[in-house]
């Protein structure tokens, strides 16, 4: 299988999509609606990527819900990204170990 042409095309297309707007879009946006869209966009992207995917992320719903709840709680306490990520992982891991014993 000659895979290198595929590699080249994928890398090129993916890079150009990211690069062209970032390099050449130079206007300052002042329209309040557009500013709002750009301001809310990252949260909307993250929200739709997190729910429902988080609940299947460990391959098993109970440990995923445990991880979700821990992440929610620590998020409400405004803990750092790494703390929340590791605590959610630990909660899911411990739950998956304890669950078969119940």
């Amino acid at each position, binding site marked *: 299988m000659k895979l290198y042409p595929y590699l080249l095309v994928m890398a090129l297309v993916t*890079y150009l*999509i990211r690069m062209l*707007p*970032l390099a050449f879009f130079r206007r300052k946006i002042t329209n309040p609606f557009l500013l709002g869209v*750009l301001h809310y*966009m990252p949260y909307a992207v993250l*929200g739709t990527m997190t729910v429902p995917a988080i609940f299947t992320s460990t391959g098993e719903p109970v440990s995923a819900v445990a991880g979700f709840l821990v992440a929610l709680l620590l998020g409400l306490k405004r803990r*750092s990204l790494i703390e929340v990520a590791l605590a959610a992982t630990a909660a899911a891991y411990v739950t998956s*170990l304890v669950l078969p014993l119940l």
Partner: protein
Amino acid sequence: MEAYGYKEGLRDGLPIGLGYLSVSFGFAIWAVKQGIPGLTLILLSGSNLTSAGQVAGVTVMAAGGLLVELALTELIINLRYALMSVTLTQKLHPSFTLWQRMLAAFFVTDEIFAVSSTRKGLLTFPYMMGLGCLPWIGWTLGTALGAFAGALLPAALSAALGIAIYGMFMAILVPGALEDRGVLLAIFAAVALGLILRYVPVFSFLSEGFVIILSAVCGACVAALVRPVRAGEGEA
């Protein structure tokens, strides 16, 4: 307005890198099963730094698909990056040169975008390089580990690691929603529409990439209609 440097970037990139390490580990185990050699996968991850696009790409490769088909698939799945790049231009420090913009663009992923675009203040070139560093290493290293040593990690641990990246998303979403009703509305609207597009059978022809684009754009528009942002307030 505060500006951030390389060190702050590295620190913010650490959880993304850890998340990527586990996600790309799983990606590589899957891709090897599709018949793609380990070295090709490492080159793929190192040059693309994207999850959904690489899964789709490996599928096309394994099926011996056309290069045009591959290019179109990547274009559609990764179209969201164009949107993110436009958003980031509004936050770049004036010291950014054209070459620096072109270099920083390589690191635009969902997670790096989320962290950098919700960071208070302007984005500097050193910050963006620091932010991209560990995620790139994590993504490429995880691919190598998964391709050549996938069987070594205990199954329960690698399964639990799957939630790491989403835990990190929660750490961005929850405080954002606490501070700003508009953000809360944007999240709920996007999630609600995303659920409809994913689970109502009529929409089953939509790929995951399109679901993300549609639900996020609509969610952000709803919030922007209800709570527009005047120049100077809000960080976007």
